């Protein structure tokens, strides 16, 4: 069904985009559309979450809430209750507050949401959802409404395997690929991006929405492996034929992205306000990997499971789907790093009869870990390895703080730690690697938006209120962010005062994951099972 409706607001997400890469691309003619388009609007550095990680940061972008309130702290949801800590892949049930799309839907606006994380199972929005991070076998059940999928399958070039995310491939790639596999990897993401663009183009043409949002995540994927070839301050050091060929393919990716951006902006029409944002920026990681659990073992807080192999390959985590029980001896562990992506250390609490530190011991152990991490230095240079250690209250204040990791580390080079076993706390990285940086990007153009203006940096939690404002919708009263009024012409802002919903908060009525959701009967059953298993007296 086609109609005359046009998007009022478009959000284009560029995962991991940084001006350090985009500005040279624009200057050198790789992205001419972005150069000309952005010159007609505003731009700013967009500050990410305390730990700049994709699911955490995008959820802040699309909820206007800090992680301590939206409840997403990693790709996985960690459960520390029970006999042994464990984790499960995050889903939309982990998001404790309303999203931008839900708020707009509630006000009768039609929305489309393509490739964003934490959107499966898809909420029943007034519009269309194709979640990101969904395995291809589940894709047909992942879209909303369900009858959208057969229509997508009829799009030219549609390939579910190419569109969806293969976690095994992604995990392997992020550990470092052999040179021979780089070209296929870049082409894979270039083709994958084309499929997402095709879906966006189809929906904008056939099912136009008031709010259209699409996330291109290939920027992040390419930069993890090829940042050293993309940042011009580094790229000149890599002159081999292979490096030139790989850089050329990366530039082709960005040329294609530029064409997609141009087509999306054209499809939205001159009356639309178009916003581009990233969840975090990027930079080159340093040459060394911090093996957090090795350090914790040295401090007497961690035990390796018998037979855990020593990593000699500069990996950050195990391949495959092995859980923490594959390398952690829980009988000798009270503090541990579970995932590389979180840069976090958890402390095992001795509650409900489980092993772990008592509530009385907890503050002392936590402070001991903080002090030790701050004193940890590179023996070769004397430089501190951990730039900053944040407690959960510092990193993730809010209603969901109890679900956050106990400590979140900012390493000296912003890189991710390794959870694996090594023969030293620091080991050299095998290959150049790109890592996340808190400084992302923001750009916007459209009616009422200032032209040729560079704004002061602001936070990603300001994106949702700003988009609601651009949609002329009132804001829920409990958003953490505010409208970036500096992005709008003074006369327009004056004529459009920020409105708030009366008595409406963006928090959902219940908190997913909270122990109390089991209900009395369910809790009794869990307790009965735990007792039967010997975990409770």
């Amino acid at each position, binding site marked *: 069904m086609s109609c005359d409706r046009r998007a009022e607001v478009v959000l284009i997400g560029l995962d991991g985009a940084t001006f350090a890469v985009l500005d040279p691309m624009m200057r050198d003619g790789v992205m001419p559309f972005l150069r000309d388009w952005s010159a007609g609007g505003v731009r700013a550095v967009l500050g990410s979450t305390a730990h700049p990680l994709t699911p955490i940061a995008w959820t802040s972008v699309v909820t206007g809430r800090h992680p301590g309130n939206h409840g997403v702290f990693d790709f996985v949801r960690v*459960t520390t209750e029970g*006999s042994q800590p464990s984790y499960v892949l995050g*889903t*939309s049930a982990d998001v404790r507050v309303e999203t931008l799309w839900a708020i707009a839907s509630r006000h009768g606006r039609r929305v489309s949401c393509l490739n964003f994380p934490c959107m*499966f*199972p898809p909420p029943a929005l007034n519009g269309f959802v194709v979640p990101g991070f969904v395995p291809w076998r589940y894709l047909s059940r992942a879209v909303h409404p369900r009858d959208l999928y057969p229509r997508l399958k009829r799009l030219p070039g549609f390939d579910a395997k190419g569109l969806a995310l293969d976690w095994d491939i992604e995990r392997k790639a992020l550990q470092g690929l052999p040179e021979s596999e780089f070209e296929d990897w870049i082409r894979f993401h270039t083709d994958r991006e084309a499929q997402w663009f095709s879906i966006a183009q189809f929906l904008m043409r056939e099912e136009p929405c008031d709010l259209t949002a699409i996330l291109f995540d290939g920027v992040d994927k390419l930069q993890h492996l090829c940042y050293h070839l993309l940042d011009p301050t580094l790229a000149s050091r890599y002159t081999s034929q292979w490096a030139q060929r790989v850089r050329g393919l990366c530039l082709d990716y960005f040329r294609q992205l530029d064409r997609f951006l141009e087509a999306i902006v054209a499809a939205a029409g001159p009356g639309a306000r178009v916003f581009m944002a990233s969840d975090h920026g990027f930079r080159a990681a340093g040459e060394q990997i911090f093996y957090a659990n090795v350090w914790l073992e040295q401090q007497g807080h961690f035990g390796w499971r018998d037979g855990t192999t020593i990593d000699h390959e500069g990996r950050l985590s195990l391949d495959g789907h092995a859980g923490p029980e594959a390398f952690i001896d829980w009988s000798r562990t009270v503090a541990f790093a579970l995932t590389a992506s979180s840069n976090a250390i958890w402390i095992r609490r001795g509650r409900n009869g489980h092993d772990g530190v008592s509530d009385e011991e907890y503050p002392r152990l936590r402070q001991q870990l903080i002090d030790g991490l701050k004193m940890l230095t590179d023996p070769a240079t004397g430089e501190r390895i951990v730039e900053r250690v944040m407690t959960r209250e510092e990193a993730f204040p809010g209603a969901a703080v109890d679900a956050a990791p106990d400590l979140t580390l900012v390493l000296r080079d912003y890189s991710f730690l390794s959870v694996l076993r090594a023969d030293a706390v620091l080991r050299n990285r095998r290959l150049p690697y790109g890592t996340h940086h808190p400084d992302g990007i923001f750009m916007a153009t459209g009616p009422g938006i200032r032209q040729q203006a560079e704004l002061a940096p602001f936070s990603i939690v300001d994106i949702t209120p700003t988009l609601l404002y651009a949609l002329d919708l009132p804001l829920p009263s409990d958003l953490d962010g505010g409208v970036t009024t500096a992005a709008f012409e003074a006369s327009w802002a004056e004529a459009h005062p920020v409105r708030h919903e009366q008595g409406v908060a963006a928090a959902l009525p*219940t908190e997913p994951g909270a122990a109390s959701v089991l209900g009395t009967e369910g809790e009794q059953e869990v307790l009965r099972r735990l007792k039967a298993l010997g975990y409770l007296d």
Partner: protein
Amino acid sequence: MMVHANGDSHGEVLAHVIGILQEITADWDVGEISADSRLAALNLESINLVYFIAELQQKYALEQQLFNRIRAADTPLADLRVVDVVDFVREMRGARQPEREEPRHEL
């Protein structure tokens, strides 16, 4: 078969669960899926099983209860039988609706 008004009788939940599993395994032969089929026998990567549970949680308005219940059972997800999942769903549905007025019938 007694049918519950809200769609969470054993037979209805079982049919729904098998329907999902049939759809996501449709592209290859895993044989007939029955109540006694083990999830591991369906040749699904673990991420698909996680999404399967997440979908059931949404369908039956269970928030995170199904994941919590499976974890409390201390059995790897892949080792569960289809009927185990069905039982957990029904158990959690019962736990959430103590105030319901309709009489509940056992099969």
